[in-house]
């Protein structure tokens, strides 16, 4: 794992956050408590602060505001482990794939109950997967599920999925995002009046834009995992105010900006942790129109940008300069691929000269969402240094997203993407910068072929397929990833035993306040 090659201290810190994983698997819960202060005591209410509001209506889609409570109220069939990126069971007990991978059977627990008291059955799983397909639910996994030929309950606690292409391993991305919903109360999700799952905590009270309160589920199927009495989440949209809440008002602040985190450096009572679930910042180039129809010029942009300066000055040193579109723990990732594009203005100038594009005007559309405009200021400076003429236009998020959905953002554009931690095979069709309707208008046949090859690769065939696709994409340079920035969380010392999964969602089963 390339991004984890830090020193001892660093490793230790990482361990706390990316966390050992201990739900159904029965593994030990990592964190301070496991270093022997006796068994964690139950009780206490955990107070969290986050910047984005909860969006129960969009529970089937990846949404920052749902990361903190999604796995408290709901359980998934499987979640992706933050160390290995591999699935581990939660509601699922076992699964098997047919020889050709086109039939996939998953069996689920028979002792799980919804908060309404109704036992979980295979029908609920089928219902949930069907909801993933419904366009209104805006799930990023919709295209995957729609490609299945059938989803059936083949027993009270067994679901069978068939497809024309292999179902696994991408089905685990679907399972990670599609937490199992209660079909009886599904309509209550729209306004958050009824939010019912099988998770360790119950949804009690939501004041939109202000706060969310959860309380312990006494009937959880793994009762010894529920140690906290409840969870209080404050929604504080201003980043500085949110960080300030750490001064005694909350036990944990999620996803603070590095700028605000500085306040807590050297503060012994506050622990800063870099979680999984990073944001990535693509700089896309339209390959169908001048000047970026020339590949040399596209590659030049990759060498022109001083990624480390962006990390140092915009993100106060938090982030890594990987130029890949997925997390570095994906199988097959090599150091060469991660650092393929690095700051080399001399080389950029040579490539620009080779493309005959000296002084070319670069019209950049920039999403007006912090911190992208700040990154643009350095990009602009870098592009000028190598003899290009950047003309940026910062566009309000609402308008920018419309262009992104339509696949139309002009000759060059700076986006912001999440979904890090899902498999590369899924991301190449889910990320707007990479999917077939990408605004770079990059759609050669070979691109689709390589994607298909990766998506049907089984077992050990996955890594080489990913390397081939990744190298093709790097070489074509239609979308440059400028950097990955991990979410920065702060917590009090006493709060222990929590975990994050590979996509950065919080798990509070096993968490306690007396570390």
């Amino acid at each position, binding site marked *: 794992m390339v991004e984890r090659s830090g020193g001892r201290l660093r490793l230790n810190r990482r361990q706390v956050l990316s966390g050992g994983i201990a739900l159904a698997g029965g593994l030990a819960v990592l964190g301070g408590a496991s270093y022997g202060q006796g068994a964690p005591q139950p009780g206490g209410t955990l107070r969290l602060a986050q910047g984005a*509001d909860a*969006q129960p*209506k*969009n529970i089937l*889609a*990846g*949404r920052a505001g749902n990361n903190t409570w999604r796995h408290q109220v709901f359980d998934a069939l499987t979640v992706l482990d933050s160390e290995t990126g591999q699935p581990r069971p939660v509601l699922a007990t076992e699964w098997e794939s047919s020889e050709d991978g086109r039939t996939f059977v998953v069996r689920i627990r028979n002792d799980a109950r919804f908060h309404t008291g109704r036992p979980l059955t295979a029908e609920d799983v089928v219902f949930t997967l069907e909801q993933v397909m*419904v*366009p*209104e639910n*805006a799930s*990023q996994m*919709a*295209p995957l599920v729609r490609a299945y030929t059938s989803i059936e309950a083949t027993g009270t606690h067994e679901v069978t999925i068939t497809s024309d292409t292999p179902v696994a391993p991408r089905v685990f991305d679907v399972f990670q995002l599609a937490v199992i919903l209660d079909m009886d109360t599904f309509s209550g999700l*729209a*306004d*958050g009046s009824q939010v019912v799952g099988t998770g360790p905590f119950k949804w009690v009270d939501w*004041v*939109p*834009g*202000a706060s969310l309160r959860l309380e312990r589920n006494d009937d959880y199927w793994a009762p010894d995992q529920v140690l906290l009495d409840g969870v209080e989440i404050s*929604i*504080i*949209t*201003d980043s*500085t*105010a949110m960080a*300030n*809440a750490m001064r005694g*008002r909350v036990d944990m602040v999620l996803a603070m900006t590095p700028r605000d985190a500085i306040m807590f450096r050297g503060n012994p009572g506050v622990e800063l942790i870099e979680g999984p679930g990073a944001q990535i910042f693509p700089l896309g180039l339209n390959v169908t129109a001048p000047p970026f129809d020339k590949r040399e010029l596209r590659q030049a942009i990759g060498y022109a940008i001083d990624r480390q300066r962006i990390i140092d000055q915009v993100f106060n040193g938090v982030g890594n300069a990987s130029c890949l579109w997925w997390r570095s723990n994906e199988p097959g990732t090599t150091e060469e691929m991660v650092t393929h594009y690095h700051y080399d203005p001399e080389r950029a100038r040579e490539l620009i000269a080779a493309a005959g594009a000296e002084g070319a005007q670069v019209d950049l559309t920039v999403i007006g969402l912090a911190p992208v405009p700040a990154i643009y200021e350095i990009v602009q400076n870098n592009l000028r240094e190598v003899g290009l003429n950047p003309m940026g236009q910062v566009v*309000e*998020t*609402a*308008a920018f*997203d*419309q262009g*992104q*959905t*339509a696949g139309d953002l002009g000759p060059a554009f700076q986006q*912001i*993407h999440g*979904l890090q931690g899902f498999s590369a095979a899924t991301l190449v069709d*889910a*990320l*707007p910068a990479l999917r077939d*309707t990408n605004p770079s208008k990059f759609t050669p046949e070979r691109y689709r072929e390589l994607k298909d090859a990766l998506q049907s690769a089984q077992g050990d065939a996955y890594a080489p397929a990913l390397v081939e696709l990744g190298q093709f994409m790097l070489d074509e340079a239609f979308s440059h990833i400028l950097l990955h920035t991990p979410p920065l969380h702060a917590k009090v010392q006493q709060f222990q035993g929590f975990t994050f999964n590979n996509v950065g969602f919080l798990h509070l089963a096993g968490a306690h306040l007396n570390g």
Partner: protein
Amino acid sequence: MFGFLARRLPSVVFMLLATSVIAFLLPRLAGGDPAQTIAGADATAEQVAAIRVELGLDQPVYAQYGRWLGDLLVGDLGTSLITSRPVGQLIMARLGSTLELAIAATVLMVVLGIGLGILAGSIRKGAGRAGLDGAVSVLLATPPHVTGLILILVLGITFNLLPISGEVSVLRDPLVGISLLIMPALALALPQAAMIARLIQARMYQVRQEEFVDLAIAKGVPPRRIVLSHILRNSMGTAVVATGIRVGELLAGAVVIEAIFARNGLGLMAVDAVSSRDYQVVQIVVLGAVVIAVLVHLLSEILLAALDPRIRLQ
């Protein structure tokens, strides 16, 4: 008074109707789409289209307006497109924060305004007068957001006396709540207070010229009492009207003040609603702001008449 209200009614109704049309059309004229906000940045065109239909945004604009106005008349403020919660409920959830700010600011505004005004109106010469006049001029010309930033720099950073951002309800933790409230409330109140001070000062000069004051002096009433009882009583009307008009501005100023001091109130809700294109919320906020301004204006005219018998409501 009822005659007065009846005469005012047509123009008030006209103004509110015009505002409702503006409030309804403005967010829809802007680019962007609430369906896109709900569908998210990663959404496909198909997902966005499906959500548009779900929200009823595919219907003709006049039909949407008619439905909104009809609902409004029966007291239904509509449902937020983004959170699917009743707009009234969303407003109530944020009202407390803004109300705390507005009350604190109004108290400061009235106290400082009247205090400064009487002081400036009583001192008639010398360096004190020039200094006060200067101070009032500076405060008057500096809007709340600039005052707020200066307060942050001075009280928050240089002297580190008060926390610079965040919010805790005064009801929940009075001490922390008030310490977080002082700077934003002061920032909002100062320019308005200066305005009131100016008006009172001017009115005091004016009243002093009037006959009944001469009469009082002739009768041997001590000068201090003249200032406090006679003149002040007669200047209050102006102050009340000024305060009334200022309360509307106070709410408007709250938008920027809430952004600077990171308070989660109605102003911030309005800005958020604009950027997420939550038409239903934007409409109500714009209309509500104007309704409040109109009501406050009417009310202060009535109060003025009650305070000063020489004024007839026209």
